[in-house]
């Protein structure tokens, strides 16, 4: 269930990046590179998303002697959250189009 606090713009960027292919597991470093976030910002965001059950995590075992890697993807709740964000954005843009302010 989504908590009462709204997500930060960076967190929304992260879940949108995850939503581009929601079934695929993603690595932290790849995500950081994709959304251009520093690791110190990305991991607190991932922790918050996981706490709010928008994100599920898994471990990928490494070769012998190497640490496992953590993987991330959106939960069903996370996907619904992104859908809700898209819907809200679409609704906001309707009055602007009606007024001829779409900027086209």
């Amino acid at each position, binding site marked *: 269930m989504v908590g009462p606090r709204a997500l930060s713009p960076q967190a929304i960027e992260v879940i949108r990046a995850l939503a581009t292919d929601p079934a695929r597991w993603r690595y932290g*470093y790849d995500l*950081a590179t994709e959304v251009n976030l*520093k690791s*110190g910002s990305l*991991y607190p965001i991932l*922790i918050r998303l996981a706490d709010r059950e928008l994100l599920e995590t898994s471990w990928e075992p490494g070769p012998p002697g190497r640490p496992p*890697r*953590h993987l991330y993807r959106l939960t069903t709740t996370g996907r619904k959250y992104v859908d809700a964000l898209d819907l809200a954005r679409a609704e906001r843009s309707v009055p602007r189009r009606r007024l001829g302010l779409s900027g086209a």
Partner: protein
Amino acid sequence: MPSDLAVLEVVGAGPFTVLAILLLGVAGAVLWSREHTPQDMPSAADDIPIQLLKWAIGLLPADRVDWGQAMLGELDRIDGDSNRWRFALGCVAGLVLVSPWRPVGPMATLAAAALGSTVVLSVGFVHFGLATDPLNWVMLAIMAALVMGSVVAANVLLRRPGVAHRGLAGGVVIAAMWLAFSRFTFAGLVSPINSVGAWSDPALLIAVPVAIGVGGAWRSRSAIVGRRAARLARVSAGLVMFLVSTVAVVAIDGGPRDPGVGVAGGVSEAFFNVAVLALLVLPMATATIGWVAATATARLRQPDLGWDRQFMSTQTAAEPAAQASQIRPIGLRHRAAVAVAVVMAVTLFLLAR
């Protein structure tokens, strides 16, 4: 800006005292080296970014350690020195600065003391017209760095298991001793150690840090907890005493000063002296002697190293407790080296009186 000698005079310490503290530090280092097994040393695969990250992961609460392991797993796959450094430093900054600062009450108190001293310094800077001298800006930058460093150090230490209560209690003891030795006067606060008899110097520099180090290690049966408690004690006491001392400096216009030195010069020198005293010299003495005392106490009690290892920063739940049994006994040569270092330190300290 005052000379180093002026600072030493305010501290009440001469070169002999400094040497004595260094010797005690050597004795502690010998004990510490016997406490650590070769397994504790970083492996060849552990470059500096990995070691830094492992240290910072030790700050995470138990229910977040898997996120630290996630960072380590990612760092392991990153190629290129600059990429590795960037990733590791980002994670360390996130863990040290961005994560919630807990426990909230003590951390807020220490942060308020730091902010308060900054406000008082700023007021003094403007009121006494210190901004005209470029050296005063250098002094202000040094003081700001010391205050910030103390706040970050407190944030790190407060999150270590078993450290907060012991360290803060030690900090209260140190601050109370300083205030008592200053006879609760502004003049005494500006140069606290010179305000009472010659016995105050060894009491503040030796007895109090020893009591804190021994107390922390004795109750916890852990040298690591004792050492961290001593460090937290000096950081927390330093921040509080710096606030009180800066108020004292402003209240009495810097206190007594040499003939020919104006008010601004006296205030500038007094600010610098209390900063070095509260945030550098006495904290270093407290940390060094408390560190030695904690290490020696834990070794004398021959603790179960497995019990102690839970406090090590890079410890993970997966590490086998079997390593714990590999504590190495103190050999005769090491005992002799420690004994000689302690005797020399005590002798030098007495010579300095």
